[in-house]
C-alpha cells in the first residue's frame, strides 16, 4: 500500500511535467433527468439534476442531486415476511476540476443518505493528454465510509471503509478508432452483507431453517476492461466492451457489450445495445447449507450467487433548435433510453411459496428476474 501511494504521488507529478500546450474543459451544461426501474416487485424512480459551470478557462464545478424513491415487495422482502416498504435515498455530489496545460486535476465529494444507510465518498483524479492528444492517461483514488443501520434492529450499527484505485488509458488508434483500457481495484473492510437477508440450512427433520448470513469482513476486487469504438463510413458508431472481474470472495465475472449509434434526419440520433454479464458465485455461497454452522462464512443473497444477465436497450436523442434562446443557449437535446434486463439465477431458488418447514427443500424453482429501466433527460449546453 505504501509503495502504491508513493508511486501515485510521483506519477501525479510526472504527468504534470509536460505542460507545453493547453487542452479544454468541457462546456457548461444543465441536465434534468427522470429515471425509473421496475422489476422483481421493486419500483425505484426519481429525478437527477446536474449543473456544470466553468469559472474562467481553468476551473469548473459540477453539482449533482439525485433521488431514489423506492417501493419494494421484492422476493427478499416477501420471503422474510416483511410487508412492502417505501423508502427514499438522497444523493448529493460536488466535483471540481482544475486544468493546467494538458493536465486536469479533479476532486469530488458524494454523500448518499437513506434511513438505514449513509455513505460519504471522497475522490481525487489526474488526467493527462499526451502524444499529440492521441493518448489520455488517468489515475484516480477514492475513499469511502459507509454507516449502516437496520430498520428492524435499532441497536444495530456498523461501517464499511472502502478504497478505490483506478487507472485508465484512452488511445486514438486511427482516425476512426478509439481504444480505452480501464483498471480498478476496490478494497473494503467492515460489514459487507445485507442486514435483511438470511441463509438457510437443512435441519434434522428434512425441512429447512433460516439462519443469519456470515460474510467475511474484507473484500478486495480487481477489474480490467477494454473498450473499442469505431466510426463507420456512413456516419454511425459501433462500440464494443469487455470487462473481466475477480475478487477475494471467489466471484469471477465477465461482461461483454455492444452498442450501435446511428444519427438520422439531421437532429436525431438512435442507438441500440446488448449487454451480457455472467458471474460465478462467492465461494461461501449456497442456496441451502447441509447444516447450521457448516462453514465459517455462509451467504445466500442472490447478488453474490452464480447468475447471468442479458440487457437490451434502445435510445433516441433529439437535438432541438435553440435559436429562440439567442446566444444564451448553445445546444439542447432531449434523450430517452429504455432497457430491458433479464437475470437468470442458476442456484438461487424462489422460496415465496415455500416457507421454512416445507418438505423437500432444494427442489424449489429457480428464481428469474425481469426488469425494465429507463432514463429520460433534457440537456442544455451554455
Amino acid at each position, binding site marked *: 500500500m505504501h509503495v502504491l501511494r508513493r508511486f501515485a504521488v510521483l506519477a501525479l507529478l*510526472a504527468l504534470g511535467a509536460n505542460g507545453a500546450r493547453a487542452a479544454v474543459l468541457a462546456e457548461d451544461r444543465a*441536465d434534468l433527468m427522470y429515471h425509473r426501474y421496475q422489476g422483481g416487485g421493486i419500483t425505484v424512480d426519481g429525478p437527477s439534476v446536474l449543473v456544470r459551470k466553468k469559472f474562467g478557462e481553468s476551473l469548473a464545478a459540477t453539482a449533482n442531486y439525485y433521488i431514489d424513491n423506492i417501493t419494494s415487495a421484492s422476493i427478499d422482502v416477501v420471503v422474510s415476511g416483511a410487508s412492502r416498504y417505501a423508502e427514499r435515498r438522497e444523493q448529493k455530489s460536488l466535483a471540481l476540476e482544475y486544468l493546467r496545460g494538458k493536465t486536469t486535476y479533479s476532486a469530488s465529494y458524494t454523500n448518499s443518505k437513506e434511513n438505514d444507510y449513509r455513505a460519504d465518498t471522497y475522490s481525487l483524479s489526474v488526467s493527462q493528454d499526451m502524444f499529440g492528444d492521441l493518448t489520455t492517461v*488517468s489515475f484516480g483514488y477514492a475513499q469511502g465510509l459507509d454507516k449502516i443501520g437496520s430498520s428492524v434492529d435499532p441497536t444495530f450499527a456498523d461501517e464499511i471503509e472502502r478504497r478505490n484505485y483506478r487507472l485508465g488509458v484512452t488511445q*486514438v488508434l486511427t482516425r476512426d478508432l478509439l481504444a480505452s483500457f480501464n483498471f480498478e481495484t476496490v478494497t473494503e473492510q467492515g460489514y459487507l452483507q445485507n442486514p435483511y437477508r438470511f441463509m438457510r440450512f437443512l435441519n434434522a427433520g428434512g425441512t429447512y431453517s433460516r439462519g443469519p448470513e456470515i460474510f467475511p469482513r474484507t473484500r478486495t476486487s480487481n477489474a480490467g476492461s477494454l473498450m473499442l*469504438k469505431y*466510426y463507420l463510413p456512413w456516419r454511425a458508431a459501433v462500440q464494443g466492451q469487455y470487462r473481466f*472481474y475477480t475478487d477475494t470472495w471467489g*466471484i469471477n465475472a465477465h461482461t461483454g457489450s455492444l452498442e450501435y449509434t446511428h444519427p438520422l434526419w439531421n437532429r436525431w440520433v438512435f442507438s441500440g445495445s446488448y449487454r451480457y454479464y455472467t458471474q460465478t458465485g462467492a465461494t461461501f455461497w449456497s442456496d441451502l447449507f447441509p447444516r447450521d454452522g457448516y462453514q465459517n462464512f455462509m451467504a445466500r443473497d442472490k447478488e453474490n450467487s452464480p447468475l447471468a444477465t442479458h440487457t437490451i436497450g434502445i435510445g433516441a436523442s433529439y437535438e432541438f433548435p435553440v435559436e429562440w434562446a439567442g446566444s444564451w443557449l448553445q445546444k439542447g437535446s432531449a434523450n430517452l433510453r429504455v432497457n430491458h434486463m433479464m437475470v437468470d439465477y442458476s442456484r438461487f431458488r424462489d422460496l415465496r411459496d415455500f416457507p421454512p418447514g416445507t418438505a423437500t427443500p432444494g427442489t424449489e424453482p429457480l428464481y428469474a428476474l425481469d426488469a425494465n429501466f429507463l432514463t429520460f433527460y433534457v440537456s442544455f449546453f451554455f
Partner: protein
Amino acid sequence: MRKPLLILGAAALLAVTACAPIEPWVKPYEREHLADPIMSIGGDPVSSSYLDHVFEVREGARGATGGAGGGCGCS
C-alpha cells in the same frame, strides 16, 4: 526490489511524457470523425452514472467502467 522498480516506473513515465520520439500518427487536422459527438465515450454523465449504478446494485462485479479522452483534441 521496490525502490528500483519505483525509479524505473517514474523515469519511464517522465520519458514518455517529456520526449516524443514517436510522432503522433493521427494529425490534429485529421480528427474530424473523432470530434463527432457520436464518437464520444462515456456518454452524458447523468445517464451513464445511473446505468452503472443499476448494474452494480443487481450484480456482484464493480469497477472499471469509466473512460475519458478521444474527441477533437482541440486546444
